C-alpha cells in the first residue's frame, strides 16, 4: 500500500511539473492544444493526490503501523474519528492535506473558468508552480509513506488533540490558507496575460470570500477549542502560530474591501495586487513559522528541515510577485482619482490602511525575536501588552469605520448629508456610552469605547436594513418580512456584508465583555467547602472517577447556586491517557443566559488521596457572543457568496468579447 501512495505522489509530481512547463510554454507561444493539455494534467493531479490521501487514510483506519506515520501519530485505543483525523495531526500528513486541497481547488477553478481562456492559460502554470513545491516536499523531503517494522502499538495522539474540534479546525484552516492560492494565481495570471482589468477580481471574488470565511471560521473554532480544552480560561494568546492564521485573514479582509473600489471606480489596482500577494505569502509564512521552529511558541511543532525550504519558497513568491507587479505597473495605472477624503472609497482606504497596519504590526511582533537576535545578539519578545496596544489603536477605529463606511456616498459626501445620515447612530453611541458610565462600567476605556462604537455600528446596520426594507415595501408592497427577504435576495453581496459586519460587532462586544469585565477567583477546597464568585456560590461535594474508552477520568462534583437557589452541577477534572502517558485538564462550564456569559471552572490541582481540590473559577460575561458571532459570520458570508443570476448576466455582458471596445 505504501508503494501505491508513493507512486501516486510521484505521478502527481510528474503531472504538476508537466502543467507548469507545458502551461508556461503554451501561454508564451499561444498554443491552445498544449494549454488544454496542461489544464488536463493539473486536473488529473487532483485524482492522483486523492489516491495518495486514500492510501494514508486507509492505513490510519486499519492501524497499519508499518507506516511510520501511522505508528507515530495513532494507537489502537484511539477512536476511529481521531485515527482518520491523524492525517493532519502530523507534518507529512498535513502537507498531503495541503496538496489535496490545492489540487482540488486548482482543478475546480480551472474547470469552472475554462471559457476565460486568455486568463486561465497563465493561471495553470502559476497554480502548478505552487503545487510543484508541495508535491516535491512530499516526494523527496517529508514523505508520509515511509515504512518500518510495525511496532505492537502506536505512540498515540497528544491528548489535547483528542477533541472533536480536531476533526474540523485544522481542515478549515487549510481550506482557508490554500484557498488564498486561487486569487493569487488569477492575479498573477492577469499580470502575465496583461489582462489587468477587473475580470480577475470578478472571477475570484467568491474564491477569496470562501477562503476568507474558512480561515475566519477555522480560527474561531481553534479559539473555542483552546477555550474548552486547554483549561486556562482564555481563547486567544497572541501566540505566533495563532497570529500566523490571523495575518493572512487580515490581509484578505483588506483585499475584500479594496476590490470593491476597483470594481466600482477602477482604482487601487496596484494595491489590490500587493494585497493578494501579501495574503498568499503570509499563508505560506504561517507554514514556515510552524515548520521551522525559529519562533518560540507554546505550539511546539518539531523542528525540521522544512523551514528552510519554505523560507526559500516565500522568497521566490515575493520576488516573483513584486517583480511582476513592477513590470506591469504601466498597465496598472488608473485614470480615476480619489475625489474627496469624505467618500465611500476614502473610508474603504482608511479601513485598508488600518487592517494592513494591524497585520504588519502583528507580523513585526512575530518576527521581533528574530530581529533582536540578529541585531543585538539577544532574543527579546513582545507579548500581550504589545498586541493589545495595537489592537486597541487600530481595531477600535476599524470598528467605527465599519459603521461609517457603508453609509457614506461614493465619490463625494457633503458634511450636511453626513450629519443627517449619522444622527441616529451617533445618538445611539452617546446614549450607550453615557449609560455604561452611569452603571459603573467606565473602568475599562477600551471596553467603553468598544461598546460605544459598537452601538454606532449596530444602529447604522439596523438603519440600513430598515431604510432598505421600507423602500422595497413601498415599491412592491407585501409584508415587512417579505420585503426584507426580497431586499436581501436582490442585494446579496451588500446585505451579506452587513450581516458579516454585525457578526464582527458581536465578536468585538464578546471580546470586550469577556476580557475587560471578567472575574477570576481561585481557592483550595475540601469536600463540603464553598467559594463565592460574582454572585455564584460553588460548593465542592466530592471526587468521582470513571474509565473512558481511551482515558481515566477524574471529576470533582461542584454544586453551583445563586441567591440560595440551585443553578447547576459542574464537573471540572482531569483525564489520564495511559497510552500517551499524559494528563489533560477537563474544564466544566455553565452557560449563563442572563449575561450571555460563562461560569468557567478549572480543577487546577486534584489530590486524590486527601480529596482536596484547587479550583479556579472565571466569570466571563458576554463570552458566548463570540461563538454566536461565528454562525452569523458564516450566514452572512453565504448570503454574500450565493450565486446571483442578475449579477452573472451583468458581468457576462460587461466582459463579453468586444464589450470593452463598445
Amino acid at each position, binding site marked *: 500500500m505504501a508503494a501505491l501512495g508513493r507512486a501516486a505522489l510521484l505521478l502527481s509530481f510528474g503531472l504538476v511539473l508537466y502543467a507548469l512547463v507545458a502551461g508556461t510554454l503554451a501561454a508564451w507561444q499561444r498554443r491552445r492544444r498544449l494549454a488544454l493539455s496542461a489544464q488536463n494534467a493539473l486536473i488529473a493531479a487532483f485524482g492522483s493526490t486523492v489516491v495518495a490521501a486514500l492510501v494514508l487514510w486507509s492505513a490510519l483506519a486499519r492501524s497499519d503501523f508499518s507506516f511510520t506515520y501511522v505508528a507515530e501519530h495513532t494507537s489502537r485505543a484511539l477512536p476511529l474519528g481521531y485515527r482518520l483525523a491523524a492525517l493532519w495531526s502530523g507534518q507529512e500528513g498535513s502537507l498531503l492535506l495541503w496538496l489535496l486541497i490545492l489540487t482540488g481547488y486548482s482543478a475546480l477553478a480551472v474547470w469552472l473558468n475554462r471559457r476565460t481562456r486568455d486568463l486561465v492559460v497563465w493561471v495553470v502554470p502559476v497554480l502548478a508552480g505552487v503545487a510543484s513545491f508541495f508535491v516535491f516536499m512530499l516526494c523527496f523531503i517529508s514523505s508520509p509513506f515511509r515504512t518500518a517494522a510495525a511496532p505492537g502499538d502506536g505512540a498515540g495522539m497528544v491528548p489535547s488533540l483528542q477533541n472533536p474540534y480536531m476533526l474540523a479546525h485544522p481542515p478549515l484552516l487549510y481550506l482557508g490558507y490554500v484557498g488564498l492560492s486561487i486569487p493569487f494565481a488569477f492575479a498573477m495570471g492577469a499580470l502575465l496575460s496583461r489582462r489587468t482589468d477587473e475580470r480577475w477580481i470578478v472571477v475570484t471574488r467568491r474564491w477569496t470570500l470562501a477562503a476568507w470565511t474558512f480561515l475566519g471560521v477555522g480560527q474561531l473554532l481553534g479559539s473555542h477549542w483552546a477555550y474548552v480544552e486547554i483549561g486556562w480560561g482564555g481563547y486567544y494568546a497572541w501566540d505566533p502560530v495563532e497570529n500566523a492564521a490571523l495575518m493572512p485573514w487580515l490581509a484578505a479582509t483588506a483585499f475584500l474591501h479594496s476590490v470593491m473600489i476597483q470594481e466600482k471606480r477602477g482604482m487601487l489596482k496596484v494595491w489590490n495586487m500587493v494585497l493578494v500577494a501579501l495574503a498568499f505569502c503570509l499563508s505560506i509564512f504561517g507554514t514556515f513559522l510552524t515548520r521551522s521552529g525559529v519562533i518560540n511558541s507554546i505550539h511546539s511543532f518539531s523542528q525540521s528541515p522544512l523551514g528552510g525550504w519554505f523560507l526559500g519558497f516565500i522568497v521566490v513568491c515575493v520576488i516573483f510577485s513584486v517583480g511582476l507587479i513592477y513590470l506591469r505597473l504601466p498597465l496598472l495605472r488608473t485614470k480615476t482619482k480619489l475625489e474627496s477624503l469624505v467618500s465611500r472609497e476614502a473610508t474603504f482606504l482608511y479601513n485598508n490602511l488600518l487592517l494592513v497596519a494591524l497585520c504588519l504590526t502583528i507580523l513585526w511582533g512575530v518576527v521581533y525575536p528574530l530581529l533582536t537576535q540578529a541585531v543585538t545578539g539577544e532574543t527579546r519578545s513582545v507579548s500581550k501588552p*504589545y498586541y493589545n496596544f495595537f489592537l486597541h489603536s487600530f481595531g477600535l477605529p476599524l470598528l467605527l469605520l465599519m459603521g461609517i463606511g457603508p453609509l457614506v456616498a461614493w465619490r463625494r459626501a457633503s458634511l450636511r448629508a453626513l450629519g443627517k445620515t449619522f444622527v441616529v447612530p451617533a445618538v445611539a453611541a452617546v446614549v450607550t456610552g453615557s449609560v455604561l458610565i452611569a452603571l459603573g462600567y467606565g473602568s475599562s476605556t477600551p471596553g467603553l469605547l468598544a461598546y460605544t462604537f459598537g452601538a454606532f455600528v449596530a444602529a447604522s446596520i439596523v438603519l440600513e436594513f430598515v431604510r432598505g426594507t421600507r423602500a422595497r415595501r413601498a415599491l412592491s408592497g407585501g409584508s415587512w418580512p417579505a420585503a426584507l427577504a426580497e431586499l436581501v435576495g436582490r442585494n446579496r453581496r451588500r446585505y451579506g456584508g452587513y450581516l458579516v459586519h454585525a457578526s464582527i460587532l458581536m465578536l468585538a462586544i464578546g471580546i470586550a465583555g469577556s476580557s475587560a469585565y471578567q472575574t477570576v477567583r481561585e481557592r483550595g477546597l475540601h469536600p463540603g467547602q464553598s467559594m463565592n464568585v460574582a454572585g455564584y456560590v460553588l460548593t465542592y461535594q466530592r471526587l468521582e472517577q470513571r474509565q473512558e474508552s481511551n482515558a481515566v477520568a477524574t471529576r470533582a462534583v461542584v454544586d453551583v447556586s445563586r441567591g440560595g437557589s440551585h443553578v447547576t452541577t459542574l464537573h471540572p477534572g482531569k483525564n489520564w491517557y495511559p497510552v500517551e502517558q499524559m494528563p489533560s485538564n477537563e474544564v466544566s462550564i455553565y452557560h449563563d443566559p442572563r449575561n450571555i456569559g460563562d461560569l468557567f471552572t478549572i480543577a487546577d490541582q486534584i489530590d486524590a488521596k486527601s480529596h482536596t481540590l484547587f479550583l479556579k473559577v472565571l466569570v466571563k460575561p458576554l463570552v458566548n457572543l463570540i461563538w454566536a458571532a461565528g454562525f452569523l459570520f458564516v450566514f452572512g458570508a453565504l448570503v454574500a457568496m450565493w450565486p446571483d443570476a442578475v449579477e452573472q448576466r451583468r458581468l457576462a455582458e460587461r466582459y463579453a468579447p468586444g464589450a470593452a471596445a463598445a
Partner: protein
Amino acid sequence: MRRSPARLVIALSVAAVLAVFILYTSVAGAGTPQIQPSDLARHQAGDVMLVGRVVGAATGDAHASGGLHFVLRNVQGDKSVTVPVSYSGTVPDLFRAGREVVVEGSLHNGTFVAKPGSLSTKCPSKYAPAKKST
C-alpha cells in the same frame, strides 16, 4: 495638475503608524528578553522569560505558601548549567521532568523567582508526537 489626496493620506497614515510604533517601543518597553539559565548572570535586573528544560522531580506545592520548586537547565549550548526556580500558581498539565518550559520572573539570591501563573509548557501539539517510554 491637481494631485490625488490619496497619496497624502497614505503617506500620513504610514508615518503615523511608524510614529506610534517608535513611541511604543521606546516608551512602553521593547520586549522581554528570552534567555536560558546560562544567560541569567547577565540579567540580574528586570524581568526575563526563562526558557529551560525541567531536570528531576519538582517539590512543594504551587498553591501553598512555599510554592513549587524545580530546576531548569539549558536547552541549547552548555546543558550542564542549571538554575533553581520557585513558582506559585497554575501548573500546566504537561509540566514534568524533561519538558521544555517558559517562565517569567527574575533572579533573587541565586534562585529564579517566577511571577505567579507565568509558567507555560511548550504544548506538544501536532508535529511532535509523543514518544513511548520503553
